[in-house]
């Protein structure tokens, strides 16, 4: 892959790439059945809900298609309630811009199911309890900085998947910025409205991280004169 030099817009403020690393803290809380699950979900901090809806993604960054969230996995494979498991798995995480609203949606889904199927209160077998964890996230700057699209593209090739994860997922949902960092910067600093929209349209939950890197690369490369995709 090579590129010819073109006249690229220089950003007023460069994009600094950050990365994030996680540590898991145990809450000591565990659920044996759906009612206990819902009750604990209502009282735990948002970082617990974030953990259980994103931890699969973080642990299986190389797998495709991405497995569902922890709640769906537990309901499907441990409680053996496939219908509810599928309902929880298919909640579209992209639609939510706050952990609070995501939490409410999952709770509502389970409570509706329980109301319709009160006889289905299954108990997890011993050892199969749902343990609640939370994610402690450490955010730190990387050495990568971009002032124009060409430098941005170069950085996209080199940054770690944790950095892509941070700017695409963490920024939007956990830091409640409403959109991913890449879209915001290319639009605000480079005037690349179309590119910003295309990046925002990517459904990051259905890519592997390397797949997402490749998709970002293609979208950005298209906007650089002479760049061969």
């Amino acid at each position, binding site marked *: 892959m090579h590129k010819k030099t073109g006249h690229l817009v220089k950003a007023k403020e460069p994009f600094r790439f950050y*990365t994030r*690393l*996680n*540590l*898991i*803290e*145990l809450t*000591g809380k565990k659920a044996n059945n759906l009612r206990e699950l819902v009750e604990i979900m209502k009282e735990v*901090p*948002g*970082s617990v809900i974030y953990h259980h809806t994103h931890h699969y993604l973080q*642990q*299986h*960054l*190389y*797998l495709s298609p991405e*497995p569902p969230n922890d709640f769906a*996995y537990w309901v499907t*494979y441990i409680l053996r309630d496939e219908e509810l498991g599928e309902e929880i798995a298919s909640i579209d995480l992209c639609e939510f811009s706050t952990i609070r609203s995501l939490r409410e949606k999952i709770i509502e889904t389970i409570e509706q199911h329980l109301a319709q199927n009160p006889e289905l209160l299954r108990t997890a077998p011993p*050892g*199969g309890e749902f*343990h609640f*964890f*939370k*994610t*402690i*996230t*450490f*955010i*730190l700057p*990387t050495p990568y900085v971009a002032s124009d699209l060409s430098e941005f593209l170069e950085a996209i090739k*080199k*940054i*770690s*998947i*944790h950095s892509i994860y941070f700017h695409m997922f963490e920024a939007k949902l*956990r*830091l409640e910025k409403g959109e991913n960092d890449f879209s915001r910067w290319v639009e605000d600093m480079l005037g690349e409205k179309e590119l910003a929209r295309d990046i925002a349209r990517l459904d990051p939950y259905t890519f592997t991280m390397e797949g997402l890197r490749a998709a970002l690369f293609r979208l950005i490369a298209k906007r650089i004169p002479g760049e061969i995709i």
Partner: protein
Amino acid sequence: MSRISDYESIVGADVINELRMVARKLKNKVIQNINSTSVGGGVAEILGRMVPLLQDLGVDTRWDVVKGGEKYFQVTKKFHNALHGRKTEITREDYDIFLETTKTNIEQMEFYGDIILIHDPQPVALVEKRKFLKSRWVWRCHIDFTYPDPEIWEFLKSFVEQYDASVFSAPAFARPLPIRQFLISPSIDPLSDKNRDLSEEEINNVLDKLQINRDKPIITQISRFDYLKDPFGVIEAFRLVKKYVDCRLILAGGGAIDDPEGQKVFQEVVEKAGNDPDILVLLLPPASDLEINALQRASSVILQKSLREGFGLTVAEALWKAKPVVASAVGGIPLQITHKYSGLLSHTVQGTAYWIRQLLHSPEYATRLGENGKAHIKQNFLLTRHLREYLLLFLSLEEKEDIIYL
């Protein structure tokens, strides 16, 4: 001795760079590890690997060992058994010996670390010294804590509660405690003899030495000879498979020579195998890491049919070699295998046999599970992840928030 840069070719420069970035934040801290032995045992092995790598990352990490007489170690052995759930009688005198030895160590040891990381129950009561110091104290529990004897746990808990934080290896080991509890899973070292890449020649040499023919698919379980590893269930499952597919079973394990129960189980397994030439029961001597590596790499399917398990790192070892694994959903195994993604979880002898047959009949499926398993281990269960989590743990001791800007 491995250097941190040696891991770059395996995990990538970005992972090593991130480790270096985090390590820089701990530049002025001294980390003091304290355990009960400098040689032998899993903890000494982990520290022997991790301390030099943390130093290589620029973190001033040191390691001290408590001193104790024979009686003290007999008592701590009793504690160890009781914490594993075995019925053990612990007398008033035993507690006195434990506390007396701890007191002597408190008087004689130098507690110079900014962060003091105490490993396992033997040195747990050193925390009595904490009130005289400004350091942060962390208790790192490496052992299986699923069903601890309540009496001994009550005794130890009074010390554990005095720490700033505790660290457990699997969710089921955590206990209701007033202090923070972190989850840090154990890891495998991809550069060790047990896990490094082997050439076909090296694999064949080991199999020739052990007189194992590679003429048919090999199914293997590597574990010490212990009822809880269910070697009899493995043989039963193999016999069910054998009705349909011609294959060979290897049950291999080591470290049971000084364990009377291990010897007994080994004999019973040999009897159960009977005259079947396709079942090989191998009692491996200690330091058979290369042999275990070769056996795993020569296998078509690897089993871990434990009835109870601590973390079950043999699963990570098998997955690292991109092997399809059928394992019981116990202890830390479900953290390593997501059913039908990165391996298969079974609950019964019949289920185990069913999954083995599936894997032998569907090599493409088996390959995919193995490859997914390897990716999962690379991402989550290698030594570099373990180092990263230790560094983050040290940093988290000064923070209360869930999102921390470094």
